[in-house]
């Protein structure tokens, strides 16, 4: 099978949420000696990007997207296991979490999943994460992106605190901040000095990818 066809099959396997097809594409790639990193970024990830667009257009719904991210995780794990030892450069690193005092994390989980399957190293800090921890972990993981989610009007102020602490820690200019959650708006993002307001997971992915391409 030619390289193009294998990459195409890989992309399709993600679009169709077909784990068997995905693993078959991996096996084919091995047989043809195709670089798995390329398979990941030009094959599977291409499928993921297409899905993200479809979701953004309302052509597919959340369950389809989640099924695909599950397949994506399977192949990514297999490929990453092989890359242990060889330094495959990550596109970027993100820390993400739901802010202190807030336990709503369904949306944040979807964002983390989708961003991860687009080749970003994602550290999900969980929920009820103090602003200090966001900053601490951003430093520890050398994050490029800091994303915070808040679902209550009472907890969204934590997002402002994160901005302030990033400045205080002297790393504000080294990261891009993203904010999201039901009460969060573009106005709020601008008010607190966040770099981007993301309405949903596809938004977050698009924003991050556009920053990476700059």
């Amino acid at each position, binding site marked *: 099978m030619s390289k193009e066809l294998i990459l195409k099959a890989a992309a399709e396997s993600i679009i169709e949420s077909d784990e068997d097809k995905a693993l078959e594409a991996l096996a084919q790639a091995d047989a043809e000696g195709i670089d798995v990193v390329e398979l990941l970024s030009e094959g599977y990830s291409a499928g993921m990007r297409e899905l993200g667009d479809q979701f953004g257009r309302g052509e597919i719904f*959340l369950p389809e997207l989640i099924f695909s991210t599950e397949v994506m995780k399977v192949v990514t794990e297999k490929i990453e296991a092989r890359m242990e030892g060889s330094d495959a450069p990550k596109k970027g690193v993100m820390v993400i979490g739901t802010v202190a005092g807030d336990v709503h994390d369904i949306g944040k989980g979807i964002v983390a999943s989708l961003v991860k399957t687009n080749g970003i190293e994602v550290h999900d800090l969980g929920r009820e994460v103090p602003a200090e921890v966001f900053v601490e972990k951003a430093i520890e993981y050398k994050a490029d992106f800091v994303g915070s989610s808040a679902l209550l*009007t009472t907890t969204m102020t934590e997002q402002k605190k994160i901005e302030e602490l990033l400045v205080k820690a002297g790393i504000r200019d080294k990261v891009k901040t993203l904010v999201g959650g039901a009460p969060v708006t573009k106005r709020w993002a601008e008010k607190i000095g966040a770099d981007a307001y993301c309405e949903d997971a596809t938004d977050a992915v698009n924003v991050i990818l556009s920053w990476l391409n700059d």
Partner: protein
Amino acid sequence: MGKFKHETDIQGYCILSNEDLDALHEATLDLMEDFGLQIHGDEALEIYSAAGCDVDRENDRVRFPRNLVNDSIESCPEEFTLCGRDPKNDTLVGGKNVAFKNFGTGVLMIDPYTGEVRDSTKEDLGNVARFCDALEAVDVFSIAVAAGDVDQRVKSLHEAEVVFNNLTKNFAHDLEGVKNTQRFIDMAAAIQGGYDKLRERPIITMGACPNSPLEINENETSIIALSARHGLPIDILSMGLCGGTTPATLAGTLVTTNAEILGGIVLSQIINKGNPILYGSSTTIMDMRSATSPVGAPEHAMFGSAVGQIGHYYGIPTNVGGT
């Protein structure tokens, strides 16, 4: 009306049959007994344990004996009064009484004079409270807009202050943290002339929301405990999202959210048997296209209708999202 009663006088839209209600209750008891709930807070776990629940401290898991749940439902008052600073604005809830509460919480305001869209302020909240106070259609007030212009650490207290000063109807507030909740209760007690007077005529309604699926956090168990100690009406409200945080089926969602709410109710009744309770639900579907929680979905109204019936069945006043 009685407890575990099958209604014989339903007119109009009726979504659950009597058999459904029995099945719902049995399924809930099974779930609470076998699987249990994830409940946090050492104090609460101690209380549940002492009352006979099977508590796994290591994993914060509580399993409920059936009779404890049934007894808790039995001891909830069927009817009670949400009081206002002005007694003529008292609201009776329970049975077939229907009352209305304004919705919240907005973060933006369309300025009524300039038409500008801007952040909402403490003053805005006071104005809306005064407006609702004058409106016959509004019986109970809840935080319509957030006070965006005050120190956010004590935001809920600023909101309480401006509402208390502009409202003579019952006030259902939204608070975070035990400290601010205590201060809020102190404010209401100061207005009424003491904690005893506040207990007699509660001008505030407290609130605590379980976290679907099947979890109650420490913040909420603390607030339930504190409110029950003061004998204040507590609105224990679950907002399940079908397919997101609860089963995809409406029936399955009714079971899991029922378990969450009853889990909180049990705590309140152990601490203060007979504590006034509102069984609350804003449950809706998760919109699978946009991953949002639409309260305009038909299912939201269907759940509201089901919860109304559940309230009549259990003999507990209910609070549902408007449609």
